[in-house]
């Protein structure tokens, strides 16, 4: 009996393992999706927490002086005098909260004196202030009560010293909007995806499975017409799903089914609700296009469902971004696909609409919808899509297959380095850092080379060629000159729309600081200079140049390099550094100048930050730029002499020839 079961199990496992697509989609994809999702979620959460940590709350306190005293130690509170109209001041955001206490804290019979905390529920800052004030007052009241209880010899019951009451100054409409604004955008995005998935799976993958897609493509109409018709069906179904869900949500709120979260729907701003319905239209186009395109890539319904699953997981992100108020609708976020509508709907429900931004959201969504639709139409016109077979294996030994293999290897390297390196460094910082760079990263690079490589001399792929001395000198000058423009130009500019957390520039204290400068130089400058360069400018730049243009190889390898620093704040600067280093390799045809650049740059940053960052004088600015330009000239000159390029130096190496 058990032998028979064993035979069946072996057969089933063999079949499952041989279904490579299913394995990739159901096992590998979630591994790729979750880190993206969680790092975005934690980054948003951190940003939100940091924002709250930095907030200074303006609070007015009136009545018994004990109340004012109880709050005196509260940090980041600015006590202000009571404005003439405190409720209006709170509603206008001029005051976060008003603590209104009676003149004396004396119990009247069984009634404890009432202390009111006036705040505005739909203003995050006011709500945070109210939470802090309530907590501080409750704690103080407990302390006093304990003291009195002890003084009374631990006998009797004192009852509550005060009754804390929170009063929301928001209008009925604002309260309803705040409640709905947290949940509705999230549910709306999710339901649109669910609706689109159900229909797109059936009308493309389902048709392939039933053999009707080939029959359909025999009718004498252009393929684009069929693709467009299918898109319209999914789009329409998605709009209907979204609208019905919105109506259902409104009914649930209205009927009281939501319990404490119930809001008076009639109090919701009609403009906000209207906006939600209006924005469903372009949002549904984007969602429908994505789901239809992905479904078309599948050979059958099972594959389509597996392919759509990670997308449904990722769909949580835009709604999640809109569920708090940490991410604001701005000219930048208004361009983000899907999330822009979620943010706009939230703001609409909160009654905080900005017409120009709404216009931008609408235009951007229509633009995204258009792009996604074109992509979908392209997929639906392909013969392999129509007939349900794949003309080329995923990782075939063709340019396309090698490109996909390289991209997968790059993604796997970034993630594996993040996980394994992170674990090692949590275990022991110094040893972990050393092991990550000298063991984990080279192993990942070697595995990538084996998986995605297509032969050729290793020295050619990795650009292991003796450099010209001028190239080395140029690299040093570039490294010394790039710091000031990067820190005080790029990062400052980035800080205007993505504020850096405090102490972000690097805390060289603790274990790392105690290591001593020689060890620090080895770990922070020399090791990345060798190991990171070998993998990103060696393996990945080398592999990518063989399967695409030099420009795309430089851009993609630099993006991978930036991603291993897994920080939203460090992405732009490390990406730019990656571009410069990849540009050096492309121009000089050697990896050694970029290794030198990396080591010198990291060392200079370490030493300068160790001394404290000061705003550079115009002279320092000028000097840095001059040194950088001198480096550019030298690298360019070295390139010209080595016969590579000879035109304008460009970090993306646009004018370079492809590697042999």
């Amino acid at each position, binding site marked *: 009996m058990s032998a028979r079961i064993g035979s069946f199990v072996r057969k089933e496992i063999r079949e499952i393992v041989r279904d490579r697509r299913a394995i990739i989609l159901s096992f590998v994809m979630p591994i790729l999706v979750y880190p993206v999702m969680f790092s975005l979620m934690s980054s948003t959460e951190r940003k939100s927490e940091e924002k709250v940590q930095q907030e200074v709350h303006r609070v007015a306190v009136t009545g018994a002086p004990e109340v004012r005293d109880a709050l005196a130690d509260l940090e980041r509170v600015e006590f202000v005098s009571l404005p003439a109209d405190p409720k209006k001041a709170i509603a206008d955001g001029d005051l976060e909260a008003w603590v209104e206490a009676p003149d004396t804290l004396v119990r009247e019979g069984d009634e404890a004196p009432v202390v009111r905390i006036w705040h505005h529920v739909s203003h995050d800052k006011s709500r945070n202030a109210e939470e802090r004030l309530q907590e501080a007052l409750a704690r103080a009241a407990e302390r006093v009560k304990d003291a009195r209880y002890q003084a009374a010899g631990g006998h009797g019951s004192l009852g509550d010293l005060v009754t804390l009451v929170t009063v929301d100054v928001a209008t009925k409409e604002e309260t309803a909007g705040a409640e709905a604004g947290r949940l509705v955008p999230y549910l709306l995005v999710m339901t649109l995806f669910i609706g689109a998935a159900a229909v797109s799976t059936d009308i493309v993958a389902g048709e392939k499975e*039933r*053999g*009707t897609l*080939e*029959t359909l*493509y*025999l*009718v*004498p*109409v*252009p393929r684009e017409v069929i693709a467009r018709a299918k898109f319209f069906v999914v789009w329409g179904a998605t709009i209907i799903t979204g609208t019905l869900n919105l109506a259902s949500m409104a009914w649930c709120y209205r009927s009281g089914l939501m319990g404490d979260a119930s809001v008076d729907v009639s109090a919701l701003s009609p403009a906000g609700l209207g906006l939600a319905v209006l924005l469903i239209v372009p949002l549904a186009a984007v969602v429908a296009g994505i789901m239809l395109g992905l479904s078309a890539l599948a050979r059958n319904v099972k594959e389509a469902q597996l392919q759509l699953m990670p997308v449904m997981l990722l769909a949580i992100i835009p709604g999640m971004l809109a569920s708090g108020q940490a991410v604001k609708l701005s000219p930048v976020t208004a361009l983000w696909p899907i999330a822009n509508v979620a943010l706009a709907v939230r703001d609409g429900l909160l009654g905080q609409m900005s017409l120009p931004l709404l216009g931008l959201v609408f235009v951007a969504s229509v633009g995204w919808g258009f792009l996604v639709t074109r992509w979908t139409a392209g997929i639906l016109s392909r*013969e392999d899509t*129509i*007939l349900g077979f794949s*003309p*080329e*294996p995923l990782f*075939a*030994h*063709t340019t396309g*297959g090698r490109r996909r293999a390289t991209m997968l290897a790059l993604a796997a390297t970034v993630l594996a380095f993040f996980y394994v390196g992170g674990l090692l460094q949590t275990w022991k910082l110094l040893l972990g850092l050393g092991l990550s760079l000298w063991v984990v990263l080279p192993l990942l690079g070697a595995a990538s080379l084996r998986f995605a490589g297509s032969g050729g001399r290793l020295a050619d792929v990795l650009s292991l060629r003796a450099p010209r001395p001028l190239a080395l000198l140029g690299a040093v000058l570039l490294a010394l000159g790039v710091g000031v423009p990067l820190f005080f130009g790029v990062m400052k500019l980035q800080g205007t729309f993505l504020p850096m957390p405090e102490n972000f520039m690097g805390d060289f204290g603790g274990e790392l600081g105690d290591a001593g400068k020689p060890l620090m130089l080895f770990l922070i400058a020399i090791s990345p200079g060798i190991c990171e360069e070998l993998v990103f400018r060696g393996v990945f730049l080398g592999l990518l140049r063989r399967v695409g243009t030099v420009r795309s190889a430089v851009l993609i390898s630099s993006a991978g390099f930036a991603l291993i620093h897994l920080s939203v704040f460090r992405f732009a600067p490390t990406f730019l550094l990656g571009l410069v280093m990849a540009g050096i390799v492309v121009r000089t045809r050697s990896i050694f100048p970029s290794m030198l650049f990396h080591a010198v740059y990291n060392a200079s940053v370490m030493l300068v930050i160790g001394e404290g960052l000061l705003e550079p004088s115009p002279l320092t600015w000028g000097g840095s730029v001059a040194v950088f330009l001198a480096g550019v000239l030298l690298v360019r000159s070295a390139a010209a002499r080595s016969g590579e390029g000879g035109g304008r130096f460009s970090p993306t190496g646009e004018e370079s020839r492809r590697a042999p």
Partner: protein
Amino acid sequence: MTERIRVQDLAKTFLGAKGEEIRAVNGVSFACREGEVFGLLGLNGAGKTTTLRMLSTVLTPTAGTALVNGHDIASDPQAVRESIGFLSGTTGLYPRLTAEETLRFFGEFHGLEGDRLNSAVERVLETFGIAKYRTQRCEKLSTGMKQKVNIGRAVVHDPPVLILDEPTSGLDVLAAATTLEFVESCRAEGKCVLFSTHIMSEVERLCDRVAIIHEGSVRASGTMAELRERTGQKYPEEVFRAVVGNVE
């Protein structure tokens, strides 16, 4: 007789599991005329279906040309699709549409409307004896009945050219007989029928001329009498074996 199909050096290359090139069709040439049933004979995987899919414009050739009813399959695929009725084992029916809805749907796409559409649908329903199942969903029909609806779907617009890829595959004896009778009636009506099969009795019964296709190339073509004479074999199976050689 007018030539309805002319295929010249048609080729199609796919990529295999390891990215290697697989030449499914490698320079196929033949011609079919009106009032003729032309048989494309070959083993499974010989390249018959790929050739017919290229002629139906679902697949794009890697090389070569073909004219169907005077229209180039590469430059005028829509006109080609207007001229043909295509049926294969992979052209399925919409399970949730009724037999009549299916015929109407495909008739409309071929430009039929109003009375012309009504009479075309009635003609097909009568010809194939499926009138009493007209309101039944295709998923409820028997295999034979489904095949009749499928043939009806392919000819509802009365095309001058029929391309049938192993149309009797998987059918019971009666359903297969109906299909073969239909092919004969098409020939009688002067249509050009390109018919792929590996069943020799069908070849004997139907085909005026045949092309034997093997490993993507036409190995021999002509009437069965010509092929018998050329190979010195009496039975069609022996003729076929003599042309393609002993295949493992």
